[in-house]
């Protein structure tokens, strides 16, 4: 199943790093928003490399994502930003011939290791895809509860459905027709439904792969408002083609180019005073 695990030797330095970084990241006891959110690492990526067959798509990417913040990955098509995102919940390795190596620490635990079941990682790192992909055979209600039902997680599903639909700012629009097919919703509603579905399994990190690129401007604005609210509770990594969107929603921006992480820093700095020439050329629209 996982080509990367087959190929990386057990005693490689990448594997060793598990033991180095065993200390869990500090967490505020009451779960409140820390004063300086950029200082608390939720996600730490070290020397991440990814391949599609022999095509080396990501080179030695190292990046820290603070808890309860939004990190945006930007860059031209084919720069590796989506590959990077898909490595974070190991969806990358589902593509035949694809593999990834490196360290992916969540709260200090490596989740890219051979002994880690990707299923465990995916329960902690949820994902929203580019195109809304609700389950067509299920009702709105069942779509939101799908993660709980399919994983056999007991509890008050009705309560979870309402709470996550409220979080996704969709409750008022669908509360009277929860049993209708998910396909009866508009594209923007479907995408918010997919966000609710991802939130229902209570992930710690939420990955968003161009979540608004298939939506109209009004639906896009709703998704962006939603991202602002969600970062109070979740750590978000978003891939976007749209630099204005990155500027609007993110605290930290990472610029990818040709498989390299060129530069990462506070969003304001990346857009106004980048250190790298390539970043400046991209954000000022000289290429892309």
């Amino acid at each position, binding site marked *: 199943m996982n080509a990367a695990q087959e190929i990386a030797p057990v005693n490689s330095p990448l594997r060793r790093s598990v033991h180095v970084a065993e200390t869990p990241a500090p967490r505020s006891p009451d779960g409140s928003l820390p004063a300086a959110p950029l200082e608390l690492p939720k996600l730490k990526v070290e020397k991440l490399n990814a391949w599609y067959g022999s095509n080396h798509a990501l080179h030695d990417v190292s990046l820290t994502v603070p808890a309860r913040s939004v990190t945006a990955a930007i860059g031209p098509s084919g720069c590796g930003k989506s590959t990077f995102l898909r490595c974070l919940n190991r969806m990358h390795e589902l593509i035949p011939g694809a593999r990834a190596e490196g360290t992916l620490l969540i709260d200090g635990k490596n989740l890219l290791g051979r002994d880690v079941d990707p299923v465990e990682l995916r329960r902690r790192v949820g994902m929203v895809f580019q195109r809304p992909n*609700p389950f*067509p055979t299920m009702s709105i209600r069942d779509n939101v509860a799908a993660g709980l039902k399919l*994983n056999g997680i007991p509890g008050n599903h009705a309560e979870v459905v309402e709470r996550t639909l409220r979080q996704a700012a969709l409750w008022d629009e669908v509360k009277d027709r929860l049993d209708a097919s998910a396909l009866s919703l508009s594209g923007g509603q479907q995408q918010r439904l997919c966000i609710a579905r991802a939130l229902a399994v209570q992930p710690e990190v939420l990955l968003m792969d161009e979540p608004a690129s298939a939506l109209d401007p009004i639906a896009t604005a709703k998704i962006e408002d939603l991202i602002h609210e969600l970062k109070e509770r979740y750590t978000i990594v978003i891939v976007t083609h749209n630099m204005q969107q990155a500027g609007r929603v993110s605290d930290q921006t990472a610029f990818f180019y040709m498989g390299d992480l060129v530069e990462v820093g506070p969003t304001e700095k990346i857009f106004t005073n980048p250190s790298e020439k390539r970043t400046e050329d991209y954000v000022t629209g000289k290429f892309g």
Partner: protein
Amino acid sequence: MSRLRWRKAVDLFWTVVSGAAVLAAVIPLASLLWLVISHGAPGLDLGFFTSLPTPVGEPGGGVGNAIVGTLFMVGLASLFALPVGIGAGIFLAEKGDGKLGGFVRFTAEVLSGVPSIVVGIVAYGLVVAHMKRFSALAGGVALALLMIPSLARSTEEFIRLVPQALREASLALGVPAWKTSLRVVLRTALGGIVTAVLLAVARAAGETAPLLFTALNNQYWNSDPFQPTASLTVQIFNYAISPYEDWHQKAWTAALVLLLLVGLLNLFARFLSRNRLQGAPR
């Protein structure tokens, strides 16, 4: 202006040609329906569905046992063929990209091209020769062998039609791969698979050759899988090759009954697949 007229003339010519082709294709179907209905309908009454066959010259009687026999053997065949065929289809769709998958796919293709009379002989050798008797079981095995390849291929195709995005959506929720296959992918493809099952059943119900020397025939009611069993198709065959006028009439009427049965199955399958397409994403 003359150019426009020329284009219109060419357009008219080809419209007529293709219209004629459509007519040529529809005429055989329409005349088949007309022949079967016009010859068969006069003998059709309630008794024809419920009575046992009568000897030559005796009026009344029907093919009740043959209708039941056909349904019984198609049921047995489905019992054998559905798990194997659908299971193979799931395998082909999920893990069928390697050498083994190619081999299975090739085998299914060859198997679906085997003439049904050959399948009948194989079932004879496998079941009848060993049990030393003709039986509904042997007929069911023969029909199952015919159903499996088409079931496997169409199940595979319907599963492959399920967008990869749905599989990813489920996996991203932390649902294990096997559960994703079963409860998301297979569930989404279910409408199509049910359609494929109905079409395979309809095809099996219309087969004669595999039953001739497996289930043989039976003049009486039978619900024992180890006894020879009547079927509509073999009954039609026997009536049609007989020299008796009243049996010929019964052959037409039995043909009409078979046509109705198969036609209903097809219509139902079409109805289901239309509903499924309306509900499909994008």
